[in-house]
C-alpha cells in the first residue's frame, strides 16, 4: 500500500465527522462498491450514507459521505413465552451485492433478521383519473374524460421498505450474519447454532451447526462469530470463545458438526493466567478478499491465518499489549469482555482494528509497519493529517505520549470498516462516526 511506504506516518486526512447523538453505533458496513455506508445503532435505527459524486463545481466535496437514508429497522419486542424483552440494537448489517437499481441489506438484532430494500424515487406520476393531486378520490361518475398520467421529476426520495422478516429461528443471541457468494443464501449465527437461510424463504431455515450439549451443564464454549467464504459457497468458518476457528464444508454433510479444518494456536505456557481463556476468545473473524487468508481478533491481538495451515497463524499483530498487566482491572470493570471487530483493506495488504481511548490501529502487512490513530473531534480538522499516537507502557513518558494509566476505557472503538477499493475508512466511536480518507485520493 503506497501510502504507508511513502510517508512515515499515516497520511489519512479529510476527516468528516457525523454526530449521531441519539444512540451508540453498533455496526458499520460499506456496500460492495463502497458508495454507500450503513450504520446501525442501539436504538434499532439504520443510517445510510452515500458518497458524493465527483462534481467540478465543488471539487472539495468529492468523496464526502452524506446522509442518504434513515429508517427504524428494529423495535424493542417482548417475548411473551419467556417473559423477556428483546433489544432492538442492531448487531450486524450486511449488504447484498447490487443487482438492479435498488439496494438491499440485511440487518439483525438479537433474534430477528430483516431484509431491507432501499430504492430511489425521483419521479412522480401526475394526472391520475381516479384521484386528485392531493390524493382525494374522485367520484367515478363525474369523470367525463380520461387522461394518461405523466411522470414529472420530483426531489429525490429514498425509501426503505422491509421485504423479508426472518424470525423465530434463534434461541440465543445472534452475533453474525453473512451473505453467501451464491447471492441466494445467507447464514445467521447465535451462541450455539448456525442457520442457513434462503433469501426468498422466511418460514424455514436449515440448521448447519449445533454445538449445544445435551446437558447444558457441560457447555464449555460458544460460537462468537461466523462468516461464509467470499468465493467458495460451500465453505464457512466460525470462531469460539476458546480461541479456536473451525472451517466447515457444507458438501460433506448436512449438519456441519464435524469440521473440515480446525485452527488453534498452541498456548504459550509462560503467559498463562486465569484470564487466558477470556483474552483468547475470538470476537471477530473475517476472510480476506482473496479468500486465501482469514483474520481473527482476540482481546489483545489480531491474527492472520493461512487457510492451508491450521497449526498456527502466519501473522500476529499486537493491538495493545500494554494492557496485559492490567487484565485484572479490566476483568473487574468488564472491559475484558469487549468485542472488537477487525477489517481488511481492499487489497488485503493492511488490516485495521479498534482499541481504547478512541484509538484505532492499522497494520501494514507488507512493510510490517503499524500505526495508532485517534478518532476525536479535536484531532479531526478537515483536510488535516491524522497524527500517529503512542502509548507509553511504563517508564518515562515522552512528550505527546499517552500513559496507560490515563487511557479512557469508556471510549472504545469496537466497529471499523474499510472501503472495498479505496483508502477510505469509517470508524465508530460510541455515537460518533468518523470517515477518513487518504490524501492521495
Amino acid at each position, binding site marked *: 500500500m503506497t501510502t504507508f511506504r511513502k510517508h512515515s506516518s499515516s497520511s489519512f486526512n479529510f476527516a468528516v465527522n457525523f454526530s449521531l447523538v441519539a444512540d451508540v453505533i453498533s455496526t458499520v458496513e460499506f456496500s460492495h462498491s463502497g458508495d454507500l455506508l450503513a450504520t446501525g445503532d442501539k436504538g434499532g435505527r439504520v443510517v445510510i450514507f452515500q458518497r458524493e459524486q465527483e462534481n467540478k463545481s465543488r471539487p472539495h466535496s468529492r468523496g464526502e459521505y452524506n446522509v442518504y437514508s434513515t429508517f427504524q429497522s428494529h423495535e424493542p419486542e417482548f417475548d411473551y*413465552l*419467556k*417473559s*423477556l*424483552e428483546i433489544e432492538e440494537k442492531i448487531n450486524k448489517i450486511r449488504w447484498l451485492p447490487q443487482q438492479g437499481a435498488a439496494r438491499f441489506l440485511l440487518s439483525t438484532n438479537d433474534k430477528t433478521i430483516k431484509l431491507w430494500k432501499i430504492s430511489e424515487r425521483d419521479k412522480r406520476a401526475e394526472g391520475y383519473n381516479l384521484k386528485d393531486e392531493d390524493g382525494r378520490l374522485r367520484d367515478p361518475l363525474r369523470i367525463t374524460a380520461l387522461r394518461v398520467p405523466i411522470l414529472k421529476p420530483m426531489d429525490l426520495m429514498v425509501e426503505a421498505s422491509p421485504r423479508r422478516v426472518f424470525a423465530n429461528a434463534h*434461541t*440465543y*443471541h445472534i452475533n453474525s450474519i453473512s451473505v453467501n457468494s451464491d447471492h441466494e443464501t445467507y447464514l445467521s449465527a447465535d*451462541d*450455539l447454532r448456525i442457520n442457513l437461510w434462503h433469501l426468498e424463504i422466511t418460514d424455514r431455515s436449515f440448521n448447519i451447526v449445533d454445538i449445544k450439549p445435551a446437558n*447444558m*451443564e457441560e*457447555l*464449555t*464454549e*460458544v460460537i*462468537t462469530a461466523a462468516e461464509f467464504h467470499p468465493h467458495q459457497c460451500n465453505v464457512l468458518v466460525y470462531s469460539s*470463545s476458546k480461541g479456536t476457528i473451525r472451517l466447515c464444508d457444507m458438501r460433506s454433510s448436512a449438519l456441519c458438526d464435524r469440521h473440515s479444518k480446525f485452527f488453534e494456536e498452541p498456548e504459550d505456557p*509462560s*503467559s*498463562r*493466567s*486465569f*484470564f487466558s*481463556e*477470556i483474552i483468547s*476468545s475470538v470476537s471477530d473473524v473475517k476472510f480476506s478478499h482473496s479468500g486465501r487468508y482469514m483474520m481473527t481478533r482476540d482481546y489483545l491481538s489480531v491474527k492472520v491465518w493461512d487457510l492451508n495451515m491450521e497449526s498456527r497463524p502466519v501473522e500476529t499483530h499486537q493491538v495493545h499489549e500494554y494492557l*496485559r*498487566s*492490567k*487484565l*485484572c*482491572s479490566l*476483568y*473487574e*470493570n*468488564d472491559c475484558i*469482555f469487549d468485542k472488537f471487530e477487525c477489517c481488511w483493506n481492499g487489497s488485503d495488504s493492511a488490516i485495521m482494528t479498534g482499541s481504547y481511548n478512541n484509538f484505532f490501529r492499522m497494520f501494514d502487512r507488507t512493510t510490517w509497519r503499524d500505526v495508532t490513530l485517534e478518532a476525536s473531534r479535536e484531532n479531526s480538522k478537515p483536510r488535516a493529517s491524522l497524527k500517529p499516537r503512542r502509548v507509553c507502557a511504563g517508564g518515562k513518558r515522552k512528550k505527546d505520549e499517552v500513559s*496507560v*494509566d*490515563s*487511557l*479512557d*476505557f*469508556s471510549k472504545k472503538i469496537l466497529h471499523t470498516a474499510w472501503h472495498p477499493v479505496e483508502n477510505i475508512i469509517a470508524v465508530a466511536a460510541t455515537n460518533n462516526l468518523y470517515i477518513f480518507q487518504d490524501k492521495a485520493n
Partner: protein
Amino acid sequence: MFARGLKRKCAVDEEAAPAYSLQRQSLLDMSLVKLQLCHMLVEPNLCHSLLITNTDQQIQEEMTQDGRWCMPVPQTAGRASRDLLVSTEILCCCTWEGVHPAPDPGDLASEFQVVPAVQAPRGSPGSVWGRDGPQENRGSFHKSLDQIFETLESQSPGALEQLFSDVHGSYYDLDAVLTGMLGGTKLIQDGLDHVVDILVET
C-alpha cells in the same frame, strides 16, 4: 515482567504464597459477584456468563490443588510459588484491600468455605444455562441464589455481609489505570438493590 517478578520472589518467599492466595480469593469473590449480577439480568449473556464461570472453575481447581499439597514442604512450595508467581504478576500489580482476612497459610480450610457456595449454582440443574422456561428459570435462579446465601451464612456468619460490603470500596480503589469507571460502581449498587429485593420477597 516475569524476570522482575522472579527476583522479587527470592526476596519475599514467605509472603508470596499468602498474598497470592489472597488475590486469588478476591478474584474468586469478584467472579461470584459477576455471575450473580449476570443472572440478575433478564436474559443473561451466555458468552459472558460462560467465560466468567470457566475462570471461576480454574481458580477453584487451583485452590483445590493447593489444598492437596498440604503446605509447606520447602522444595515443592518453592517450585509451586514460582509457578504461582507468574499468575500473581499477571493477576494484579496493585494492593488489594483484603475482602477477607488473610487466611492462615497453614489453614486452607477457610478458603474452602466459599467453594461450596460457588458450586451451588452449578449443582442445581438448569440454573446456570438452562433457558427452558420463565417459571423454571426464575425458580432455579431463586433456588441457586438462596443456596449461595444459605451456604455462605452457615459456613461463616457475616460472610455474606462482608462479601457485599467490601465491594463498594476495595474493588474500585484498585489502581489508577482506570478512569471514569464509576459506572461500574453503580452497576454493583443496582445489583445489590436487586439482591435485597429478592431476599425480602423470599
